[in-house]
């Protein structure tokens, strides 16, 4: 019932994506003893809930020093191969984040949809044990800079995260770090 006529240009908004990825921390793959660990999209479903977030930003070419404390609520829904969360920060809906999973490649794709319209860019999520990584690149004037947000699960209700950038993909500079704890 739909026809894809054309695709838009792929340009990335650093600010938007950064915000989404930092705020949208993922739930752990850990499960109760004796229960099989969630697989595929089920892993991301643990995303739902309310979290207290504390972030400290550092001075870099891509970030300004500062700190903030917020309450993040992920109101989520699953339908078929889609998992979508309305992301509410301190009571304001900021974005709808849609996740999909490809079992063949064991890769996740995320789509942060802003409330004010605008382009939607796909991002990747890589899960390596208890470390979940959101990588992306930004190219300006022919120079590509790599970014990533890492979520490290310390427990089912506690995440430590950090955001970094790199010019070569090997050496990373910290932009911000923080922790989130589930409150509901």
């Amino acid at each position, binding site marked *: 019932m739909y026809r894809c*006529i054309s695709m838009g240009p792929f340009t990335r908004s650093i600010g938007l994506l950064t915000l989404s990825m930092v705020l949208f921390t993922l739930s752990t793959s850990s499960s109760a003893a004796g229960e099989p660990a969630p697989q595929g999209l089920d892993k991301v479903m643990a995303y739902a809930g309310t979290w207290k977030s504390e972030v400290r930003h550092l001075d870099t070419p891509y970030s300004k020093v500062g700190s903030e404390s917020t309450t993040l609520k992920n109101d989520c829904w699953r339908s078929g191969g889609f998992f*979508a969360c309305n992301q509410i920060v301190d009571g304001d809906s900021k974005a*709808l984040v*849609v996740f999909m999973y490809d079992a063949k490649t064991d890769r996740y794709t995320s789509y942060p949809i802003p409330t004010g319209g605008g382009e939607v860019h796909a991002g990747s999520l890589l899960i390596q044990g208890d470390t979940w990584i959101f990588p992306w690149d930004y190219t300006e004037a022919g120079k590509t800079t790599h970014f990533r947000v890492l979520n490290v699960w310390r427990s089912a209700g506690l995440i430590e995260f950090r955001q970094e950038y790199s010019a070569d993909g090997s050496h990373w500079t910290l932009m911000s770090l923080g922790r989130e704890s589930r409150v509901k």
Partner: protein
Amino acid sequence: MKIVLFVAALAASGLSVAADVPTPDLDRLNVFAGTWKSDAENFDTIFSKAGKVSSTLVNQCWKAGVFFVCNQSVNGSSRVLLAFNYKAGDTYWVSYVPSDSGHAISGTLIISGGVWTYPGQQTHLGQTTYFRTVDIFSDTDNIDFREEFSTDNQTWTLMSQGHETRVRK
């Protein structure tokens, strides 16, 4: 109900919308949900091929805050997730996330009475072509639709037309 994925000339915006955006604006989208039987006739144009198509379309929908979200399946196969959120007046933002993890695209929906219009455009080699899908609701369960294109945004060429009937809410 016919959904066409367009490239829309949208200015990127990171603005947030307060969670207390009036829900009546989203509630008018409820008619989109349900199971629809569709019969369409396509015509020979540079963007379409002649033929007749019958299909069953299911919109499984969810309302969350400022978003109205639907997983759209065609003949039992999930094709796209549509996310609507209110812009202003009679206009909504619409984002399309394809089920094959491809590129998502964005556009708008304009509702004027029972007429829902999805406008869009694409530019190739400096030539802009305008597209639109027009859904005309005769009641909450019946839609006449057409798809058209134009090179001047005034004179439109029919690509497809048809009828949809909602068989389950």
